[in-house]
């Protein structure tokens, strides 16, 4: 067989009759076949189409690459999301068995006050059946008249109330700058002494917001949040996702674009540590994310390190709260 004939076939220019003849030749001996395979290989390796690669790049490739990468990114995110969900699910399962520094007590004393240590939480059941969950660093008190029907309590700090219904005896919570009159309800109050704001969120029922002189400013409906600023004396009522304000009871904390310095203040309370941020820019950085408060602080710090620009250094100090630098 002439080489020219074989190459004519390989180049796709042979007629069906010629192809038949070539195949017969190829199958007639192993040398022929080997010869053909070598020629075909040489031809294939030196082949080149006449496409305009630039056009293909512009019209097809750019789009395909980005679509593929987005898909891959989506897949990665989905995977991470699944891991995070699993993490929280496990956390929820365990928290029922391993409540971190939390104790349930029933309070019958007539005069009562409780201080929740830093880094701990506390559950109370009052004589009328009202339950109170106190967040760390809170002070809670009521007077001897409680059992006699004067349902007035004092709060510094943060608490979640589920107030027992009793139409004849109003339930009142006094904080440093606002009082709250309760009409059978559950709500969350944040009123720490060292923060300028009182922040209260109503989950269920109805809640009156009162000045220290007893004048009712407004009455909240479920889902509403009232924020009072000591400096500006401004009272702001808005609709919120109540979970964000009450999730601390479950040990789950969502920060919604909060400044790192505000988060640091909260963490100081939860973990009884001192956090120093020397870089003002970092202190003002906004953070969005959810953490499990019941986890050890080194895990939480790792989460912050991975999800924000902060780095940290831990300095244990004997007899004093551990010092943590955020930088």
């Amino acid at each position: 067989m002439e080489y020219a004939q074989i190459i004519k076939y390989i180049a796709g220019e042979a007629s069906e009759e010629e192809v038949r003849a070539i195949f017969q030749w190829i199958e007639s001996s192993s040398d022929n076949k080997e010869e053909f395979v070598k020629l075909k290989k040489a031809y294939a390796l030196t082949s080149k189409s006449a496409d305009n690669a630039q056009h293909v790049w512009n019209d097809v490739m750019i789009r395909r690459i980005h679509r593929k990468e987005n898909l891959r990114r989506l897949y990665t995110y989905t995977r991470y999301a699944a891991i995070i969900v699993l993490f929280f699910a496990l956390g929820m399962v365990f928290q029922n068995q391993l409540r971190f520094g939390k104790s349930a007590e029933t309070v019958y004393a007539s005069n009562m006050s409780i201080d929740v240590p830093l880094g701990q939480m506390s559950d109370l059941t009052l004589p009328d059946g009202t339950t109170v969950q106190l967040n760390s660093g809170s002070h809670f008190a009521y007077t001897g008249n409680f059992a006699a029907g004067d349902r007035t309590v004092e709060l510094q700090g943060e608490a979640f109330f589920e107030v027992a219904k009793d139409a004849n005896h109003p339930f009142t919570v006094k904080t440093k700058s606002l009082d709250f009159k309760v009409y059978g309800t559950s709500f969350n109050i944040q009123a720490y002494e060292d923060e300028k704001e009182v922040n209260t969120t109503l989950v269920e029922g109805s809640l009156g917001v009162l000045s220290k002189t007893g004048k009712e400013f407004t009455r909240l409906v479920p889902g509403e949040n009232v924020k009072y600023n000591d400096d500006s004396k401004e009272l702001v009522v808005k609709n919120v996702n109540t979970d964000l304000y009450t999730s601390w009871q479950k040990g789950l904390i969502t920060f919604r674009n909060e400044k790192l310095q505000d988060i640091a203040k909260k963490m100081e309370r939860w973990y009884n540590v001192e956090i120093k941020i020397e870089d003002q820019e970092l202190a003002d950085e906004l953070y969005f994310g959810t953490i499990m408060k019941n986890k050890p602080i080194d895990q939480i710090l790792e989460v912050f390190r991975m999800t924000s620009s902060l780095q940290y250094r831990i300095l244990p100090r004997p007899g004093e709260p551990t010092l943590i630098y955020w930088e």
Partner: protein
Amino acid sequence: MLTEPSALDEFLFLQFKSGNESAFEQLFKAHYNPIVGFCNQFISDHDKSASLAQEAFINLWMNRSKIQSPNGIKSFLYTFAKSSCLNFIRHQKVVSKYEDRHLQAMEGKLNSEVLDSFDFDALEFSEMEELIYRSISELPEKCRQVFMASRFEGKKNKEIADELQISVKSVEANITRALKTLSVKLGEYLPAVLVQMIMHYMS
């Protein structure tokens, strides 16, 4: 496929590895047509060949962290093209060029054998490429000119004949001669397994 390795390749390779899209664009433009041409040799369908080649490049980009050397790029692309073509032939998606279906089946079998005989392992591949490159450069001047114009510039035999002021017959003869030389050199790279297989069929 034939490009001389250079410092530029090395530079492009590093840029490509680090995820630089314009480096990838350069690589795409350098290797796209050879890969399409390669596929088209086995599946005789230009659109399908183009689509397989594009798939090869997308996979190259997604796997760039695994590519070890500039040569690994072509090795990856040709390996991908090879298995895509084999897959395509095996699933008999090739539209028959011939009225006689038996011829089509034989061609599919032959093409699979040729594809199977390729080893695009990075080391083997660079040796093979080097061999082809050297073989072409060692061809007699006229023969080389004709071959390059035909295979790499995609010129028709008639155009080459006019350009070089030789007969079309002479163009054909030179291409044949060049391919014959190349195929002899490539013979060294025919794996022993294939030879045995062929012997088995013959006996």
